[in-house]
């Protein structure tokens, strides 16, 4: 039994390494040997814990295309691996690859990890890829992460659609470009979206007819 288990483990490990090597083969042909080895190591780890490897390869290729040093590339790939892992955990139980990628992007611009969990709680069964993208854009624009996250989460909880969230980000962007302070623009635009949404459950309890 022990031998059989060891054999299976070895086979699984070999398969993972082979698959990682195959993925690494998609690396830019000009990749440094050290970069190639480091990426292969990250791919083995990613595969073992179920993270999307393609994102790691894309990050390495991005560094190669930008002619970054091998150390910078390996550091960036390793850091992305960590962010993907955190995003996957916070967006549990079954985040899609797009959600994990968007979550990692949000973490990169400074969104605290627990906020991802709150957003998942607000939309347990809908994709968070776009709300996370909107949040990333708002934070990158200079809004405090907690403030931006609170606004986006409130809108999600009130039933805002992806289109409304996208329009919110676009409007804030336009306002900031026109000279508005980011916080003021977010407040104004969020109130605008909020006014189009149905009342919150607590308020609707008083307005909707009740059955005896």
């Amino acid at each position, binding site marked *: 039994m022990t031998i059989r288990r060891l054999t299976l483990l070895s086979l699984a490990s070999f398969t993972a390494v082979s698959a990682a090597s195959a993925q690494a083969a998609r690396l830019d042909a000009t990749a440094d040997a050290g970069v190639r080895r480091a990426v292969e190591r990250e791919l083995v780890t990613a595969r073992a814990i179920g993270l999307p490897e393609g994102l790691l390869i894309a990050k390495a290729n991005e560094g190669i*295309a930008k002619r970054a040093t091998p150390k910078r590339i390996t550091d960036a790939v390793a850091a992305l691996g960590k962010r993907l892992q955190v995003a996957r955990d916070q967006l549990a139980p079954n985040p899609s690859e797009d959600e994990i990628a968007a979550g990692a992007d949000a973490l990169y611009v400074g969104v605290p990890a627990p906020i991802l969990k709150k957003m998942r709680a607000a939309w347990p069964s809908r994709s968070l890829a776009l709300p996370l993208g909107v949040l990333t854009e708002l934070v990158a624009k200079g809004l405090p992460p907690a403030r931006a996250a609170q606004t986006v989460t409130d809108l999600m909880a009130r039933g805002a659609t992806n289109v409304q969230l996208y329009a919110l980000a676009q409007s804030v962007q336009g306002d900031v470009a026109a000279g508005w302070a980011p916080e003021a623009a977010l407040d104004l635009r969020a109130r605008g979206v909020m006014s189009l949404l149905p009342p919150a459950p607590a308020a609707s309890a008083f307005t909707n007819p009740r059955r005896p």
Partner: protein
Amino acid sequence: MRGPVAACLLIAAFRTAAAQAPDEIRVEAGVAEVRQAGTRSRNAALLGLTWRRTHERVVTTASGSMTAARDSIDTAQGLLAIRYQFARQPHWRVESGIAGALFGLNSLSSGGNGATFLRVQHAYGPRGVWAGTAAGVTNRTGTNLQSSAYDVGAWGEYGRTSGTVAGVVTRSRDTDLLAASSLPSRRPVGPYIVRDATVTVQQSFAALDLAAVGTLRRGEGVATKVNDRAMMLAAAFYLSPVIALTVSGGRQLADPLRALPDAKFLSASVRVLFLRRDPAVLQIDRYGAIVLMRGDPDGGATMTIRVLANASARVEAYGSFSAWQPVRMQWVLDAWELQVHVPPGPQRVAVRINGSEWRAPANLTKVTDEFGGEAGLVVVP
């Protein structure tokens, strides 16, 4: 005085129009001193308008120009062209459209003409060739006189230098029109064929474009040869990506179809580009790079990256959509452009000119990456 006032009104009207729907409007207004052989110099007012709208692989362009000198140079011309870019053969383009002109000649009756044209282009990177044909009718005196034209040419860019070589053969039965437009010594008699070979060379510097255009004409009428040559020089100084001052001078040969007369001229004008009145679009950075999104029915969006730069520049874009591999942008009328389909979710985009540093398009949120570079972040709904 009425000329400049009318020009200002037209500019204001078209600026208002730009706030509605069109993607771009370019206005060029100026003055010129024109002198035809045997006549004294006259001042002329010039006004040119170009409107363009891009919808996926179809580019619609409409343009018009007016020259008013209260002499034999009063002309108004219009052009509507539709260009289609094949999806599966990205190197091939087909352009078709209609062109029209109205003219008034003191020495001859006023009139107009209309023509349809078809042109096929094969572009490979910064070089390409084209072949086209046009057929039209000129009407001055109530009688329709047919005309036709064929043209072939090639263009190419080599660093900051670009060039075009073109050959045009024009046939027309309206001999009087060409005669009235030409120098007295070169007036043909009877139906004629005009063959023009034109070479254009343009050199770009940081904010300055210089161009030279030389034309060699070999023509034949029933009884008279129409051989001639002309040279024109032009310079455009860019005050910003959307405003340029232009100066040009030289000699233009008579246009056998549109009644533009053979004349020496010196002109100065201002060229202004109006973009759609979108706050994001109006924020033009030093590169004048913008990204526009249009949702696709099957999900995702078509992302159009547009860069305002000199025509001879080398302009590239890259981002998550291209796995960070630089993609050469295409010159479309008066800007560099790239259209790609992108899936829903966050996308990062950057552009660069002539191999310089990668920059985020001005209307996107700027983010720095782990490699010390910057890119624009856009969320695709």
